């Protein structure tokens, strides 16, 4: 690549752009609020009390730091590089999503907002949002496509137990994208008292930046843990990418370490050539949706096409803008993995490591058969196990032809 930047860690610019991506493509009604959010976030970032409260909650409520684990049997199985896991699935609520929700609810409270809304696909972000709302006593409305409501019943019930109102969304394909549209419609009508906790590193600036910053605890811990345990940085990082918050959280603290390679795994569904996938970088084009410019699955007229993935958390036709930028700059490589490959990796991880990974994380694990052998035995690959798979056992059973 020509014109390599001096640092990959100083994006976005003051207008919220990551190269040509990102930005603030929102309705005028939301603009003043987005600008307020940005200045409030700057103030919070500089406030030691905010940082202290965030870190205290991460330690005592979420259970951080999450462990760094040497996956000995998988390493043996592949016979290549050492495989290490960052165990985000051990967090409270079972995934990395909670890191971001803690940060955003503290911002909401700081801004004097009294009502929280969020969108959810698989339900993990909905559960994490409902959790922090319960913890801080704020009313919470979760928008969820009715297709997802049907396939993620346990999480719907969890959200309700936590006191959230779950609104099934009937528009479009009734999945994550439509839930996001409906959340935006709610926000624009309730902008005076409502804070929108976006679940991934996407949306209008400053969301991609602040979600990344809150999730970067993953990479900062991993960096320190790897150095402490092995004395060196990992040779390769792998993480699944839907919107891309767990991946950017792991990658960002390593972006300026040229010896660390990075691979983001996109959901290839039934295969890129089938057209039924959720791989925005591999199979999409730059466009504008949900407040940011980024790679999108779309037709030649700019109509957004439906994503497909076995993993509800990856079933979205876009990707966070920083990933689009990292893709074009070449710093991070992106690899498509199919439903079937993810299902195999899911089962292998259960059997060899005694860890049931989320289907999202199984996509990252499914890159190992291709990559482990490309590295020497004295090299290390770190995989972000972003969530646990208890929520997915019904989906997996169905695909394996097992009746529960």
């Amino acid at each position: 690549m020509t014109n390599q930047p001096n640092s990959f860690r100083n994006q976005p610019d003051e207008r919220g752009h990551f190269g040509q991506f990102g930005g603030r493509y929102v309705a005028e009604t939301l603009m003043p609020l987005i600008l307020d959010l940005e200045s409030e976030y700057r103030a919070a970032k500089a406030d030691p009390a905010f940082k202290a409260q965030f870190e205290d909650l991460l330690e005592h409520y979420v259970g951080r730091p999450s462990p760094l684990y040497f996956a000995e049997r998988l390493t043996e199985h592949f016979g290549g590089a050492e495989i290490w896991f960052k165990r985000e699935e051990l967090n409270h609520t079972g995934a990395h999503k909670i890191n971001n929700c803690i940060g955003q609810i503290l911002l909401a409270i700081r801004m004097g907002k009294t009502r929280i809304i969020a969108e959810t696909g698989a339900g993990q972000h909905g559960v994490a949002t409902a959790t922090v709302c319960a913890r801080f006593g704020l009313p919470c409305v979760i928008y969820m496509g009715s297709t997802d409501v049907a396939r993620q019943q346990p999480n719907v019930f969890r959200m309700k137990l936590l006191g959230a109102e779950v609104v099934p969304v009937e528009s479009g394909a009734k999945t994550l994208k439509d839930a996001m549209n409906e959340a935006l419609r709610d926000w624009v009508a309730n902008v005076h008292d409502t804070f929108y906790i976006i679940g991934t590193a996407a949306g209008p600036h400053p969301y991609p930046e602040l979600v990344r910053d809150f999730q970067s605890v993953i990479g900062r811990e991993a960096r320190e843990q790897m150095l402490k345990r092995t004395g060196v940085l990992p040779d390769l990082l792998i993480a699944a990418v839907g919107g891309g918050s767990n991946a950017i959280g792991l990658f960002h603290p390593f972006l300026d370490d040229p010896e660390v390679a990075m691979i983001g795994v996109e959901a290839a569904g039934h295969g890129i050539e089938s057209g039924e996938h959720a791989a925005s970088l591999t199979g999409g084009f730059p466009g504008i949706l949900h407040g940011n410019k980024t790679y999108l699955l779309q037709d030649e007229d700019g109509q957004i096409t439906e994503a497909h993935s076995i993993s509800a958390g990856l079933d979205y036709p876009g990707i966070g803008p920083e990933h689009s930028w990292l893709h074009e700059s070449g710093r991070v490589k992106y690899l498509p993995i199919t439903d079937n490959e993810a299902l195999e990796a899911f089962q292998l991880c259960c059997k060899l490591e005694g860890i049931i990974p989320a289907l999202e994380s199984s996509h990252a694990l499914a890159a190992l058969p291709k990559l482990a052998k490309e590295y020497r035995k004295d090299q290390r690959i770190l995989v972000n196990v972003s969530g646990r798979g208890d929520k997915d056992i019904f989906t997996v059973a169905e695909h394996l032809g097992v009746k529960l």
Partner: protein
Amino acid sequence: MTARLTSAFAKGRPALVCFITAGDGDTAANLDALVEGGADVIELGMPFTDPMADGPAIQAANLRSLGKGTNTREVLMIADEFRERHPDVPLVLMGYANPMVRRGPEWFAGECHGCGVDGVICVDIPPEEDDALGPALREKGVSMIRLATPTTDAKRLPAVLEGSSGFIYYVSVAGITGKQQAALGSIEENVARLKHATDLPVVVGFGVRTPEQAAAIARVADGVVVGSALVELIGEHGENAPEHVRRLTSELAAAVHSAAREAA
């Protein structure tokens, strides 16, 4: 190109602005019905899969249109043919950024110019992202018509007005299309605020459904937009919609055109 828009607001009375979605029902016949009914400015909606700022009525119209396979070329053809039939009636395209910029802003601006489109309203390109479309439109003499809202404060207003032409679209409620109407007092106050800051005509939309509501707003603004109520007629009556569209438009036009301006 803005000459048509300018003259629409120079008739010595408030203007009626009517919105329908391109490709929903017999669009050409419905557009003719709007003109025959007395609409002063036509807003033609470009259908989009993800109309985030729209309520149920216009969402449904978008789906009906896309369901029939409407594409960008057809939307532009509808505009082009409208321009041939109605050389003097201003036509504005309204929609979302992605279909507008998909082939590049220069392409879209060139097509608008070629099809006799006078202005473009893009819901999700605020002044901060003007580069995505504004310069290309201005280069071709097509108006970038911006939205101002109840949340557009004094600090932001100059940025919203900068680079705007044709008219200012005041979104009277913080919310989506076709829902509740704002209190008249708040509309009057905000229109006055906008008119103090710009010489452009100020048109008020969102939540305006009946001739009575339209007349009340026309007394305090340069124009009134009606969309969802017309779109609902098209959804309800399908191919027979034009006569219903014509009737409602003429009732709205009579109410709006006869509304006496309260302030000179």
